[in-house]
């Protein structure tokens, strides 16, 4: 054989579009929870109303500009959406807190994405890394919280249904668990989506957590622990990121177990960074995992 003339329909642009479509309902629910709801309750101005969308747009633009700059430097004719960087920007915007400083978000996202693109070594999950840096700096600058103004002003008692409709705390677009499950189903029908990763990561994390909570007599808080801090969102959208996750059958399972275990360990110390930390550690190992699995 010398050439395959027939090619499948999937390409990077269509993959980008499918992930964006799966993300779109979460962007709307994020806008409702962190913008519209606060505006209706007279907690924020018009700027506050559109702040969640502003984060999304800035994230997207950072990715686009990074691609344009890279293409100029490398004199490449690659199209802007033939690459995942705009999506990376959007995902970073999704996991950070609504209370994040916009200037900090913009500069960190732009600089780190640009460095990652120029280095092009795909050793670390850049979405998780950038988000972690932003959350870390936000924490250094003052009291970091995932709670929006509405949640800060009202003490809420939540049941399991509340978590499904986004009343738990977490990143801007990460809290609507029901929508998140629908997004997972939408993504899972595509053959390129590494569906084993969110599945096994969640199983590992939930198993560890269940044992721990049984042991400490806090099993009643299990839903609060699973559905908050953007853990499921990170597992569904960030952990299966193509370039820095394992791709072999066994590799994907090992990679997911590492994520789940590390998330659990970090969760005991500082929950907001746990899933991102787990993903970063696992992404650093993804090449060696695949190599070992092919021995």
């Amino acid at each position: 054989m010398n050439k395959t003339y027939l090619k499948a329909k999937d390409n990077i642009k269509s993959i980008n579009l499918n992930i964006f479509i799966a993300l779109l309902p979460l962007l709307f629910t994020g806008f409702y929870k962190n913008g519209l709801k606060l505006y209706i309750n007279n907690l924020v101005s018009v700027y506050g109303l559109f702040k969640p969308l502003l984060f999304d747009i800035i994230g997207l633009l950072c990715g686009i500009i990074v691609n344009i700059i890279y293409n100029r430097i490398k004199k490449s004719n690659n199209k802007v959406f033939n690459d995942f960087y705009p999506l990376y920007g959007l995902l970073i915007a999704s996991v950070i807190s609504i209370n994040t400083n916009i200037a900090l978000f913009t500069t960190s996202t732009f600089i780190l994405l640009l460095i990652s693109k120029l280095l092009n070594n795909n050793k670390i999950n850049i979405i998780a890394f950038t988000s972690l840096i932003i959350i870390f700096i936000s924490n250094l600058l003052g009291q970091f919280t995932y709670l929006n103004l509405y949640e800060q002003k009202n003490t809420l008692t939540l049941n399991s249904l509340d978590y499904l409709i986004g009343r738990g705390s977490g990143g801007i677009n990460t809290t609507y668990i029901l929508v998140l499950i629908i997004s997972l189903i939408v993504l899972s029908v595509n053959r390129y989506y590494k569906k084993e990763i969110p599945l096994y990561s969640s199983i590992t994390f939930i198993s560890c957590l269940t044992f721990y909570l049984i042991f400490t007599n806090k099993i009643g808080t299990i839903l609060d622990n699973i559905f908050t801090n953007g853990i499921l969102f990170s597992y569904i959208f960030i952990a299966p990121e193509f370039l820095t996750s394992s791709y072999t059958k066994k590799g994907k399972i090992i990679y997911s177990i590492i994520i789940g275990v590390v998330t659990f360990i970090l969760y005991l110390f500082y929950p907001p960074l746990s899933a991102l930390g787990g993903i970063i550690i696992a992404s650093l190992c993804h090449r060696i995992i695949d190599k070992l699995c092919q021995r």
Partner: protein
Amino acid sequence: MPKVKIEETENIRLSKTIKEILNPDYVYIPFNSNANLHIKSNEYVKKGSILFDDNKIPTYSPISGKVIGSCKVLSDNKLKDAIAIENDFEEKNLKRKTYKNKSYTKEELINKLSELNLNYNLKGNTLIINGIDYEPYEYSLSHITKNYTESILDTIDELISILNIKKCYLAIKNDDTDNVQTLINQIGTYPSINLRLIDNYYPNANKQIIIKNFKLDEKNTIYLNVEDIYNIYNAIKKDEPIYDKFITITGNLLNKGRVLKVKLGTRILDIIDNNSVLNSNYHIIINGLLSGYEIKNKNAIITSNIRSIFICKDNKIEQNSCINCGLCHINCPVNADPRTGYNLNKCIKCGLCNYLCPSKIQLIGDKNE
């Protein structure tokens, strides 16, 4: 086993009838440099005359006519010397015996087939007959099954008794509705033939994959396809070597493709109906759009290894860098990884990795193409 269904998105259509092109002006029969020629220039040959032998394996003339000399042709993508024969369109046949009711022993059958240059491996006690075309848009085997059902079933039945076969399977695609219907109606008369309906996943028609799916031992399995059975039928009933070949000719530059029955040695350009397409920017792809090869030489000829010819327009696809999705590896039927070289020695060159790659990278085959 991964299950990949090929999306038949190309604008390729096919007629349901077989067209015969058995009267080419010239045929070209390729030979190796060490072949022992039995003919001379300007000599008249009958259909079935021995042209040359290679290690005592004879090659026969598929037409009657005058030997006009030798020339270079592209045979199975290799440039070779060939004997050119000018057709006299009289089909004068070398007298051959017909054996309508002759019963063969195993040894007699093997000798007969090798005498007629039909070199099949007939060792084993399980027989698999493949009626599934290898690639999408190929329909030759399906058409042969449909048009010669009775001869094929009779021949398989005869082979079972001659070769002392313990188990015999006839595999066809489960969505090949015409053949499924016909065979289900007729198979009752042949209790020793087991009809197996196979899912239309690629590359389920590959010999290795079929044997693996049937959980059989490769060493003890005889693998033939329905065209081989048709050839064996001609050999044992009419004492005929292979003169003709069934091929699918189609592509997005042809209005309608079809299955052709053509003489071996016919020039490929001579069988393309609408020559006007050849004035445009075209590609001639042999043996499938996934695992085939492109030919650029206009003197390519039909050989027994050609299953299909695709005349397609230029499709320049932009390649991107690898996104590490792993589709090439996790869908590989032999669990190879074309990126790292893992298990690449087992590669069956089906082209599935090239097909699935969302970055459109040519992972196997000519990477410069």
